[in-house]
Structure formats: C-alpha cells, structure tokens
C-alpha cells in the first residue's frame, strides 16, 4: 500500500498541479515551500511520535492526507496551494518517521528486511502506474484524482497493526553541528536525487510526449522489471552487503544517466527497463545500510536509557 501510494505521489501530484492550471514556476514554489515547511513538521512528528507511538501517528497521517485531498480540487491560487501543502507535509512526516523506525527495529538481517520490503512493496508499485495509466486513458481526470486520494488516505492505515511495538522516549535534545552536517552530507545528495526521480523524470516524459498515460506506462515498465528482478534477487543477495552496494551503485547511477536520452517511445521504454534493473539492486543495498545505521542508533538510545534508570 505504501509503495502504491508513493508511486502515485511520484507520478501524478506534479501533473495534477499543472492540470489544475498552475504554471511550472508555481509548481516549483509549491514544492520549495512544502519541503521548507517539512523541516518543521519533522520536529513536530518526532515529538509526537515519542508521546503517541505508531498507530496514532498513522491515523493522524491519514487524517492530514484526507484534509489535503478534500481541499485540493477547490484550490485555484498559489497561496491556497501552499496552504494545503502544510497538510500534505504533516501527513508525509507523520508517516515516514514511524515507518523508518519500524523497519529499523526488525530483528532480521537488514539485507533480508530491505529485500522483503522491496519485493512486496514493488509489486504494489507496479500496479499503481498500470492502474493509473489505464484510468488516465479511459476516465476523466477527477476520477483519477479521487482514486489516488483514496489510496493516499488508506496507506498509513495499512501499518496500523503495529500497535504492540512500543516506542520509548528518547530524552536527548537534538543538536545540529557543522560536523554532523558534513558527516551526513549524503542525505543532501539523496534529496537532490529524489527531486530528479520523483518530479523531474515524470515531468520530462510528460513534456516530451504531452501525455499522462505515457508517464504511467513508462513507470509501469520500470516497475515490472523491478518486480521480476526483486523476486529473483532475494536468492542472490546472500553475499557481502559492501560488494552489493559497490556494484549496484555503479549500475544505478549509470542507468539514471541515460534518462535524458528518452526522446522517442522506444528509447523511453528501453531506458525504463534499464532503470528498473539499476533501481532494484541499489534500493535493497542502500536501505539495508540505512536500516542498519538507524537500528544501531535505536539500540544505543535504549541502552543509555536503560542505564540511566
């Protein structure tokens, strides 16, 4: 459900905003405001998560998605669009913070966790643009919009079952130093990559072919490769995580480098196939490392808390 929704965010939200009559510059203003506000909502989310735990956070996330999508069709000016961006930012932050901690706490080998997450998640991801692409071809835009909204609202609730996992208060104050920012600078690269993948890539295809259906079909093809490869890859990744990361990173960045060549339908679909290969292996390796780091920090936090009692 999460991946299904993520796929819809990646493909359709920038296009919905453009179809609503906003210009591309207004779209950029919207996203810039949205990501700036995100820093504040992350603090709110972290504080609330310590008090409320997983289920209530997922319900709150759904609630804010509901507000965002209820108001979206009535938005016709930039200040209004930025205003409802606040609800979207709250919904996203309230979902991602608990979600990441949830996966970091899994007791299995993190490579297996990342692998399973990819296999189950990507099947849903493949369905989203396929269904969205077909609907976009056959149905009016507003049907596609409400269909997307419905899945956005339901997605956080799909994780509601994790009620038994209790989160303990961290207690430490957040301190940000230049040294820490330098140490974690790769997340700046990741942020840049996310815009390139989730906003620039669908817009690039949309502007080239002037069709939302082609965007959906290109994404579907990528994801179908990912699904097929993900099922197989579970058996391949028993070796070293470091080697997997090295190999997959080169493959991933080189396949992404081919995206500007998608000038014809044939090239667009070929590039999508290659991106599918690159993305699958790299996502698994990258997430395995990320969950491992986060897991270590969770354990350290609990150890310090335990020793202070």
């Amino acid at each position, binding site marked *: 459900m999460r991946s299904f929704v993520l796929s819809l965010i990646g493909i359709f939200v920038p296009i919905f905003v453009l179809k609503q009559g906003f210009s591309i*510059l207004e779209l950029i203003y919207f996203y810039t405001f949205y990501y700036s506000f995100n820093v504040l909502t992350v603090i709110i989310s972290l504080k609330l998560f310590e008090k409320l735990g997983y289920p209530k956070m997922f319900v709150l996330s759904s609630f804010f998605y509901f507000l965002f999508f209820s108001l979206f069709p009535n938005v016709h000016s930039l200040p209004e669009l930025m205003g409802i961006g606040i609800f979207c930012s709250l919904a996203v932050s309230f979902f991602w913070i608990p979600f990441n901690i949830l996966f970091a706490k899994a007791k299995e080998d993190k490579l297996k966790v990342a692998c399973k997450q990819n296999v189950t998640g990507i099947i849903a991801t493949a369905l989203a643009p396929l269904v969205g692409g077909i609907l976009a071809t056959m149905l009016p835009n507003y049907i596609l919009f409400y269909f997307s909204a419905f899945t956005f609202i339901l997605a956080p609730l799909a994780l509601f079952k994790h009620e038994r996992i209790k989160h303990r208060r961290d207690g430490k104050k957040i301190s940000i130093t230049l040294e820490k920012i330098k140490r974690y600078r790769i997340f*700046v690269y990741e942020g840049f990559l996310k815009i390139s993948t989730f906003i620039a890539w669908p817009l690039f295809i949309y502007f080239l072919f002037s069709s939302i259906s082609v965007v959906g079909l290109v994404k579907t093809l990528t994801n179908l490769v990912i699904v097929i490869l993900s099922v197989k890859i579970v058996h391949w990744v028993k070796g070293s995580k470091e080697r997997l990361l090295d190999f997959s*990173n080169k493959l991933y960045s080189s396949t992404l480098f081919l995206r500007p060549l998608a000038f014809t339908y044939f090239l667009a679909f070929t590039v999508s196939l290659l991106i599918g290969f690159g993305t699958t292996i790299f996502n698994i390796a990258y997430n395995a490392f990320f969950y491992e780091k*986060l897991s270590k920090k969770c354990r350290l936090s609990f150890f310090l808390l335990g020793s202070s009692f």
Partner: protein
Amino acid sequence: MPTEFLFIRELLLSLGRIIALSLFGILMYFKVDPILALTVLLILGSISAYYLKEIRDI
C-alpha cells in the same frame, strides 16, 4: 540518537530537494527550455546517485 539522526536526515533531505528545485526555478526564470532544464536536473540526479554509496561510511 535515533531522533537526532532522523531529524538531521530529514533536514538534509529537504536541503537537497530545495537546492534541486531552486536550480530548476532559476533555469525556468531565465526562460531556459523546460526539457533542457529537466535534463540538467536528471544528469545532476544521476551524479548524486553515485555518491550515495557513502552510506556505509556514516
């Protein structure tokens, strides 16, 4: 601490996103063709992807 780690991560993710959007915005402001502006973003995105392998060292 997980809270601090997650916060710094989200902060830097947002910073990266804002840099990308600002670059796109600047290119659009100077009337660069949208396809060309998006191409710049796609190429820089693939270069960013290469540096993500540093995740093992943090």
